[in-house]
C-alpha cells in the first residue's frame, strides 16, 4: 500500500522528521536562487507559513539555505507558501519607508482546482477526487503546457500536484518572472474559454473563425472525451444527464430522433439540432466538449505579482500527501492516490538499511557539515519521494543549461559593446582637441 494510513494528528511528530531528513533543501534553494544571477533574489523572496493551530505568518525571508533549514526545522510549518521577490527583505518590510516596499518579480503561476468543475462532474464534488475525474487534470495540463510553450514561448514549467484536488503550474522563465500584472492577466484570459458563474448555463461560446489555440485545445479534449465523458462520467447515460448537457441550448432547438437508443456516440448523431438563428448552434458539439473538459483557471491566482501559492514539497495537512512535481512524460499514468504521504515516507525511512549505507555513515563521521546534507540525500533516496525529487532535478538542470547558454550569448554581446564604447571615447576626445 502506498498510503500508509495517514492521520492528521500525527503531523506534529512527522513534520519535524520530514524537515530534518527528507525535505530537499539544496534543490529547493537552488531553484529559488536561479543561478545567483540577480543579487539577493533568494533573500528578498517572501515565504508564508501556517503553523500549528492555524497561526499564519507572512513576510518570512531567509538569507541562506542554512537559515531556511534552521527556521523551518524550528517553526515546523504545516503549510508553506511562496510569494514574490520584493525590493527589500520581506522580514524587514516594516523598516522600509512606506510605498517603497514592492513586489518586483514572481513566477507566472496557474492553479487548477477540481471544485471549479463541480457543475460538470458527476462522480465527485467539492474536495473529493477519483480516478474518473482526474482525467480533467490530465487534459488541463496537456492543453496549458502546450500553449505556454508553443504560443507564449516559455520553456521552464514546473507542474506540481497540490496534494488534494488540483495541480499548480510554475512558469519559471526569466521573462515570465518579470511579467507585469496586466501581462499575467492577459495570458490568463487568453487561456480562458469557460466563462461564467452560477448564473450562466452556456459557458463556452465559439464563433468563426476558430482561433488556432482553440483548435489545438479541442484536439486534446477529443483524444480523451470518449473515455472520460461518455464512459467514465457517463454524461449521456440517462435522460436527465442528457438534458443537462443539452440545457446549454434553448429547448426548441433540439429534439431526439425517433427510436434512439440509450448509448449515444460522440457526435450526438441521434440528436438533431435546429439551428435557425445566426448565432451559435454550428459548434455546439465542440462547445459542449469544452464546457465539460476545458481547464478552468482562477484568473486571480495568476494575475497578482504578490500572490502566495502553496510551495512544492510542502505537505497537505488534510491528506498528508506531499506536493510533488509531476513528470509530464508519465502524465497519463500519474495517479494522485499513489503520491506518497508524509507517513509513508517517514515509515520508509525507518526501514533497516543496506550495507553500503553503513559505509557512508563512516565517511560522514569524518566530515560533519556535509554529512548532514549527504545523509539527507541518501535518506530521501530510500523513500518513495526519490523519483519526484529526480523530476525536480531534471527541471533544475534544464534551467541551469539554459542560463549558461544565455550567459555565453551575453558575453559575446558585451565584448562587442565595449569595443564600440572605446571607439566612441576616442572619437570624442579627438573632437575635443
Amino acid at each position, binding site marked *: 500500500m502506498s498510503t500508509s494510513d495517514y492521520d492528521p494528528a500525527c503531523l506534529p511528530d512527522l513534520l519535524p522528521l520530514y524537515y530534518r531528513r527528507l525535505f530537499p533543501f539544496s534543490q529547493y534553494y537552488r531553484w529559488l536562487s536561479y543561478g545567483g544571477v540577480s543579487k539577493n533574489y533568494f533573500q528578498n523572496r517572501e515565504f508564508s507559513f501556517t503553523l500549528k493551530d*492555524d497561526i*499564519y505568518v507572512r513576510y518570512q525571508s531567509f538569507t541562506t539555505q542554512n537559515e531556511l533549514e534552521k527556521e523551518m526545522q524550528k517553526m515546523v510549518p504545516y503549510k508553506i507558501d511562496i510569494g514574490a521577490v520584493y525590493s527589500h527583505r520581506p522580514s524587514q518590510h516594516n523598516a522600509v519607508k*512606506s510605498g517603497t516596499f514592492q513586489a518586483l518579480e514572481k513566477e507566472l503561476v496557474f492553479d487548477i482546482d477540481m*471544485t*471549479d*468543475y*463541480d*457543475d460538470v462532474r458527476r462522480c465527485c464534488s467539492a474536495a473529493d477526487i477519483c480516478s474518473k475525474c482526474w482525467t480533467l487534470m490530465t487534459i488541463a495540463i496537456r492543453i496549458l503546457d502546450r500553449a505556454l510553450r*508553443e*504560443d*507564449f*514561448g*516559455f520553456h521552464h514549467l514546473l507542474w506540481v500536484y497540490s496534494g488534494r484536488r488540483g495541480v499548480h503550474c510554475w512558469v519559471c522563465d526569466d*521573462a515570465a518572472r518579470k*511579467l*507585469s500584472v*496586466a*501581462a499575467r*492577466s*492577459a*495570458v490568463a*484570459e*487568453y487561456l480562458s474559454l*469557460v*466563462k*461564467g*458563474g*452560477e*448564473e*450562466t*448555463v*452556456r459557458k463556452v461560446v465559439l464563433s468563426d*473563425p*476558430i*482561433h*488556432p*489555440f*482553440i*483548435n489545438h485545445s479541442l484536439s486534446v479534449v477529443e483524444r480523451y472525451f470518449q473515455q472520460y465523458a461518455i464512459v467514465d462520467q457517463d454524461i449521456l447515460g440517462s435522460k436527465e444527464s442528457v438534458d443537462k448537457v443539452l440545457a446549454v441550448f*434553448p429547448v426548441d432547438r433540439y429534439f431526439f430522433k425517433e427510436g434512439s437508443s440509450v448509448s449515444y456516440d460522440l457526435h450526438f448523431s441521434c440528436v438533431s439540432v435546429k439551428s435557425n438563428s445566426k448565432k451559435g448552434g454550428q459548434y455546439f458539439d465542440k462547445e459542449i466538449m469544452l464546457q465539460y473538459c476545458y481547464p*478552468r483557471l*482562477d*484568473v*486571480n491566482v495568476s494575475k497578482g505579482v504578490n500572490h502566495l501559492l502553496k510551495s512544492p514539497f510542502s505537505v497537505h495537512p488534510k491528506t498528508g500527501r506531499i506536493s510533488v512535481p509531476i513528470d509530464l512524460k508519465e502524465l497519463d499514468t500519474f495517479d494522485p492516490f499513489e503520491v506518497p504521504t508524509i507517513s509513508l515516507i517517514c515509515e520508509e525511512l525507518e526501514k533497516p538499511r543496506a550495507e553500503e549505507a553503513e559505509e557512508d555513515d563512516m565517511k560522514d563521521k569524518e566530515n560533519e557539515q556535509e554529512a548532514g546534507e549527504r545523509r539527507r540525500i541518501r535518506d530521501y533516496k530510500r523513500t518513495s519521494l526519490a523519483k519526484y525529487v529526480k523530476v525536480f532535478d531534471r527541471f533544475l538542470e534544464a534551467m541551469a543549461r539554459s542560463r549558461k547558454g544565455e550567459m555565453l550569448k551575453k558575453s559575446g554581446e558585451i565584448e562587442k559593446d565595449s569595443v564600440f564604447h572605446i571607439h566612441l571615447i576616442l572619437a570624442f576626445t579627438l573632437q575635443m582637441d
Partner: protein
Amino acid sequence: MQFPGRRKKLIGSSQNDLYDHCLQFYGQPPLENISLTEFETFAVERLKLLKTVENLGVSCVKNSEQYTKKLDAEISRISEYEKRRKDHISHFILRLAYCQTEDLRRWFIQQEMDLFRYRFNDLHSKHKTDFLHKNNLKYETVSAEEKKSLQDKLIASSYGLSGTKVEEHDVYKVPFQDALDLVRTRKVYLLAGNAYIPHHEIVTIVLNDFRTRLSKALAMTARSLPAVQSDERLQPLLSHLSHAYVGQDYSIQKNIGKISLEQIDALSGKSFPLCMRHLHKALRENHHLRHGGRMQYGLFLKGIGLSLEQALQFWRSEFVKGKVDADKFDKAYAYSVRHMFGKEGKRTDYTPYSCMKVILSNPPSQGDYHGCPFRHSDPELLKQKLQNYKVSPSGTNQILELVKGMHYQLACQKYFELTHNVEDAGFSLNHPNQYFTESQKLLSGGRDIKKEVDMSQRSQENPASVTRPSQANSKQIFLDEIQELSDPS
C-alpha cells in the same frame, strides 16, 4: 515635465509645422503663453471629453460603429489648427492634475488611450503611415516566406484578414507583452512568445508605445509637480480637476450605525440594487460567499453605514451557520473584514465599488455570485429572477432590451424605477451605494426640492459675470463646471 523658462510666442509660419498632423504622441510640451482662462477652459473641455470616452466605453462596444459615431458627434467643429493646439495644451494640463496617484494615473492613461485609439483608427491609411514616420516608429515585419507558411493560422486568428491581405500588407512581429489587448481577447496569432499583427491592427502596437510613454511621462511629471503646485494660481484649479473625476465614492461613511442588522433582509428587497440583493440572498442561502462576493458586498455594506463591529457580527453569524466554526471565522475571515475597514495591512480604507468597477473588472466564475447581474447573467436567468421579484413582464422586457444594448446601468436604473414605482429615477446611476441612498430618500418621503430652488437663484444672480468674465468670476464659472462634472445628478 518642466514648464520652460524661455517662452516663445508662436509665429505665423511655424504654425503649420507645429501642428501638421491631426494626431500626436505628446512628446513635446507646449511652449507658448496662454491666459489663465484658456488654461481652465482647455482643461475642463478635455476632461469632459475623457469622461465621455469613459462613458461610451462602458455603454458601447469600443470601436464599434455606434461608438465611433457617438464619439464623432462629441468632437466639436472648430478650426483644425485650433483643435490641434487645444488638444496639445489640454493634454499637458491634465497631466499635471492626474499624475499624482496610481488611481488617477491609471484612469487618465486608460481614457487617453481609448481616445487615441479612436482617433488613430479614424485616420486614412496614408496618414497612419505618415504618423509612424513622423514619430520614428519602426516595427519588425515578418518575411514573405514566414507569412506564407502561417497564412491559414493568421487568417484564423485575426479579424478581417484574408489571404490577399496577408500577401499584400505587412505583418508585424512583436513580443506578446507589447500586444496585451489582442492577447487578452485572443484576437491575434501567437507563436513562440511573439504576436503576429496584421497591418490593419497596427494601432495595438502604437497604443502600447503610447501607454508606455505616457506612463513614464506621468511619473516624471509627478516628480516636478511640487514646483508647479507652488504657483497659487494653479494649485486650486489642479486639485479641483482631479477631484472632479473621483466624484462621490462613498468612502467617507455617513450614518454609521444607523442601520441595524435586523433591517438588512428587508432593505435588500427594498433598497438594494439587484447585484447586492443577489449577493445577500446567496449569502443567506449558502452561508458563504467567495472572496469576490465578500469584497463587493462587504464594501457596499460599509458604504451604507455598517460599523466594523456590526460587519463582523453579520458575517460571523452567517458563516457560522455554514461550514465555518467561530474559531475559523475569527482566524481566517475576520481579518479580511477588518482589512476592508482599513484596520489591517497597509490600512487603506477601501472604497465601495462603483458600477463601472463591478461591470468591468473581475468577472464571476463558477461558484461566484458577484458582478453585475445585468452584465454577467444569462438573459434567461435574469428574466426569471426579475419575474420572481414581481417585476411586470413589460418592465422585464424593457430591461432586457437595455441589457441587449449593453446599457447595464440604465437597465439597473429601470429596475429602480419599476420597483419603486416611479416614472423617472431622477438620477444617473453609477454606484450601488448611490442606488441605496436614492432609494432610501424616495422611500422616506420625497425628493430634495431645495436643490432646484438654489440652482435657479444662482443663475439669476450672475448674468453680468457670464457676459464679461473677469478673472475672479471666470474662476467661479470654472469651479461650477467642475462641480457639475462631479455631481452626476
